[in-house]
């Protein structure tokens, strides 16, 4: 069943082409990777899919009416709050699942430290906790693997596969290749 259908989408900034005549179809329950070089418009595509940005030309049909889970470039964390507070203001509970996650990410011992003291990779892992808690049917992740160590990468990959097996749809961008069972939409001209 079709979830998203894009027909000849173009996007311009200051009359320069960012996206040029892109067409694709994404079905329910698919694991889709959008790949391309730096500046090829991967983020823009995601933003068009979730409706933050409107394409300059072309048509996008989105059959989804539910909430989506979106992970952007920015980590959505407050530097002046601790890990615990950051999770709480994101609406996450500190239950055993999340504490386990923090343990796995080596963050549990820092739980009362402010996020500003964490490294980039640690912050990235912390921002993933929200994604790992999501019960939305559609997950849209912008560069989820950047800055992660090998274990965390494996963990996230397994999580994504498990989600897809539950018939959830995941759309993500990456310019890293790894062998897995996903469909790829290339947007290099």
């Amino acid at each position, binding site marked *: 069943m079709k979830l998203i259908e894009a027909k000849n989408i173009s996007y311009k*900034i*200051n*009359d320069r082409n960012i996206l040029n005549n892109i067409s694709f179809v994404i079905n329910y329950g698919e694991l889709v990777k959008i790949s391309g070089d730096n500046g090829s418009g991967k983020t823009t595509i995601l933003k068009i899919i979730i409706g933050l940005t409107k394409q300059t030309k072309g048509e996008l049909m989105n059959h989804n009416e539910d909430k989506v889970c979106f992970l952007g470039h920015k980590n959505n964390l407050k530097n002046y709050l601790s890990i615990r507070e950051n999770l709480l203001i994101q609406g996450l509970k500190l239950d055993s699942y999340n504490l386990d996650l923090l343990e796995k990410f080596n963050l549990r011992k820092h739980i009362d430290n402010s996020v500003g003291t964490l490294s980039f990779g640690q912050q990235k892992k912390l921002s993933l906790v929200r994604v790992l808690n999501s019960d939305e049917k559609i997950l849209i992740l912008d560069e989820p693997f950047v800055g992660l160590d090998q274990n965390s990468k494996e963990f996230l990959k397994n999580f994504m596969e498990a989600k897809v097996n539950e018939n959830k749809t995941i759309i993500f961008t990456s310019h890293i290749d790894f062998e897995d069972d996903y469909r790829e939409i290339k947007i290099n001209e």
Partner: protein
Amino acid sequence: MIKKFFHQFASPKSYFAIANKFVKPFLVFFFLLYISALAWGLFFTPPDAVQGDSYRIIYMHVPASFMAQILFAVMAITSAVFLIWKLKLAAYVSKSIAPIGAIVTFFALFSGSIWGIPTWGTWWQWDARITSTLILLIMYLGLISLHASFENKEKADKFFSVLVLIGVVNIPIIKKSVDWWSTLHQSASITLTSKPAIDPVMLYPLMFSIVSFIGLIFGLVILSSQNEILKREKYKSWIKNI
């Protein structure tokens, strides 16, 4: 319907072609017209009974003050057209009015304060009109710097237009409140409006100078919008054929 009309006849391309053809004769015509209006006012009218010859600044000051407000209103119309119909040309015109408006407003202030030296004995009075013109100048400058501060010009257009539309609502409010304010602080000052109705001998050249000044300034606006179109549509294919 309207949208189709706009897109056919109000595309930057056709506008530019028409403007390119007419802007120079238009400017020259109104320039000469304004010079003759000014010559009439400066040399062929009698001096004012109260103010003597210094009143002749009126032939430059009044057209400028008038245009300072008219330009903001025009900018509001083009901004509304841009926000409603997403017409790019309207945004270009809107943006190119702002610097011209700032220049005209500045000149209105300047000529007013020079006029004030012989009339009031001071170059600045906290008079209602002067104050609201000053605020108008601040608004123009705010708009210019807002547009300039964004690299993404499509976004800049939207913010600019929104600010113009809130600003145009604000102008009568400023006028009203400043009028209200100055009645208390400034009851003794000479206002230009409180004089008896202007004599026809001076009124006709004044009208003439206003009309020709309007034409002159709109000529400048067209020139400025051409500049804007060229800058913004650099990468379009039609532009290579000019």
